[in-house]
């Protein structure tokens, strides 16, 4: 018989309850969570198309095209908020520059959509109108892949991913943290915005890209395509949510939270925080880029305004309002703030920014854990 294992030569105390520790349950989702995911998928892929396309327009149950577009747009924003939740809520890195990655993804998709116009533009040229206007004779080098859907979709992922990787590598290696990091991300997106405003950059200057006609040779401005894009966005959001769940439930996800709580302890435990921060940062940027690529065909325009510093700040507000220490919180926040925005900007257009500011202050003061924190507290006290 082998002698019992004991810690550092201390014999187990007689009568003490030894034995292995109980591991906490680690499931991807609890039963209720799976129900929620199922309901979301059914709603998006069945209820929305049926109510919009098959229920006649006069009926009370009809979902108008306006609301389908709005839903599609907010779903894109929700993906961004989820990305912010991963990097800010779980890793403690506040990025105010995710608007840049969103816009880069959008421009990637926009380039493809511009090529799909073919020679149906104002000037009946093979080149997009803005290039004709600038008297350019051929496509600049960075438009080389724009003809191919697959090639351009690769760029949607690779360009923002690479930018995030390089930027993150230098920032994290230099141990830039906290508010300094946030300010640098703001500066980065501002610099990119100025660059994209220039006509010479080859992205249509301040007008950006618009007037899209087709996607994959299918007309883009039809009710059917509107629903299809909305459904795809919804499914991508659900997919990203499940992926993020798997990440935060893994040991990797707990290392991220440990970095948020006590980074020096993580280092002195033998983990290299740079690798962890860099990987989640790059993933979060790519998620935003995908959201941008889904956004552009739905709203029909992309211009440098999407890179404005305010856009990145707004994303952080969605996550904060919903509750950034969870994954569902940022999604709820994106729906709540943008839902409120679409109502407010119609009812009281001048007061929206005041309301947004007040909301942010109120949430910071009274609901540090956001809407989700409030709901959870309610649920606990019942």
């Amino acid at each position: 018989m082998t002698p019992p294992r004991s810690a550092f030569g201390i014999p187990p105390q007689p009568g003490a309850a030894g034995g292995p520790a109980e591991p906490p349950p680690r499931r991807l989702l609890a039963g209720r969570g799976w129900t929620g995911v199922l309901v979301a998928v059914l709603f998006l892929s069945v209820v929305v198309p049926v109510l919009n396309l098959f229920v006649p327009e006069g009926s009370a149950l009809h979902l108008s095209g306006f609301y389908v577009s709005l839903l599609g747009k907010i779903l894109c924003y929700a993906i961004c908020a989820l990305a912010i939740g991963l990097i800010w809520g779980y890793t403690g890195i506040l990025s105010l520059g995710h608007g840049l990655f969103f816009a880069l993804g959008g421009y990637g998709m926009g380039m493809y959509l511009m090529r799909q116009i073919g020679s149906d533009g104002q000037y009946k040229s093979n080149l997009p109108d803005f290039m004709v206007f600038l008297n350019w004779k051929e496509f600049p080098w960075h438009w080389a892949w724009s003809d191919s859907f697959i090639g351009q979709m690769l760029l949607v992922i690779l360009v923002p991913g690479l930018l995030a990787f390089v930027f993150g590598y230098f920032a994290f290696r230099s141990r830039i943290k906290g508010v300094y990091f946030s300010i640098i991300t703001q500066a980065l997106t501002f610099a990119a915005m100025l660059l994209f405003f220039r006509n010479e950059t080859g992205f249509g200057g301040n007008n950006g890209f618009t007037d899209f006609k087709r996607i994959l040779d299918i007309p883009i401005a039809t009710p059917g395509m509107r629903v299809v894009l909305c459904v795809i966005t919804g499914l991508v959001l659900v997919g990203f949510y499940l992926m993020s769940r798997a990440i935060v439930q893994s040991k990797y996800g707990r290392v991220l939270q440990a970095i948020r709580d006590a980074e020096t302890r993580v280092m002195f435990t033998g983990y290299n925080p740079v690798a962890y921060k860099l990987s989640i940062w790059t993933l979060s940027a790519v998620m935003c880029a995908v959201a941008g690529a889904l956004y552009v065909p739905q709203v029909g325009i992309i211009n440098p305004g999407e890179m404005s510093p305010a856009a990145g700040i707004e994303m952080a507000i969605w996550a904060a309002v919903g509750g950034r220490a969870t994954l569902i919180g940022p999604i709820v926040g994106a729906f709540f703030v943008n839902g409120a925005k679409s109502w407010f900007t119609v009812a009281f257009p001048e007061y929206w920014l005041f309301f947004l500011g007040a909301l942010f202050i109120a949430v910071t003061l009274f609901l540090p854990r956001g809407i989700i924190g409030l709901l959870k507290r309610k649920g606990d006290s019942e």
Partner: protein
Amino acid sequence: MTPDLMDAGARALAAHHARSQPFAAAEPYFAQGVALYVDGISVSFDGFKALNDLSLTINVGELRCIIGPNGAGKTTMMDCITGKTRPDAGKVFFGSNIDLLRLSEPQIAQVGVGRKFQKPTVYEQLTVFDNLELALKADRRVRASLFFRLSGAQLDRIGEILQLIHLKDEAQRVAGLLSHGQKQWLEIGMLLMQDPKLLLLDEPVAGMTDEETERTAELFLSLEGQHSLVVVEHDMKFVEQLTEGLKTVTVLHEGSVLAEGLLKDVQANEKVVEVYLGR
């Protein structure tokens, strides 16, 4: 440009090159009986000499207490050993083969140097169990963490440590809710999970009750022999318990070693009395 500055630049560059070499977690070589060898390290912050030609040798399996008044350089010394601060001059070797000055903080932790901070530093929003699990000796790379699964033996190990640090009933509690003393114990437990060969403990009993202090002393004494320990402490009663009247104590003052010897000899040393009581 002064020659001094050029020298410093050349040294910094060499250190940088050495550090960017690919790292394979090396095994320290202890056959010569020395666990930690600190030779003539100096650190200055804006002209203030925090460490001044400090030399120190810790033998394998030794429990060494280090005392000294505030500002003597105790914490800076630990910073140098664990890679947080790079000394301006001097050498720090772990075993006879590992040059700690060439490694980064995570690499130093991986070769087997564990450090406890003065202020208990645990992951406040994770449970006690999760805190220990993260400290568990395992592959530290991203991909390994992503697909990590706890084995039965590892669960046993976590159970043992939970028992040892008296936190078994709190395993599923969030660490931020523990008392100060319990956090200190949790941090010690996290160190033990890493299975380090050398433990650096910066004021490990600060904020503990007398009973907790006594239990901590017992724990450290049980570790002696299999691990090398360096304990920095102000609490003389605790030092007395640890040294049991026969171990060496080192007194630091103004960044270098003032005296070394048995606690009672050191306490009788005139220079030490002068430093502690003021002149």
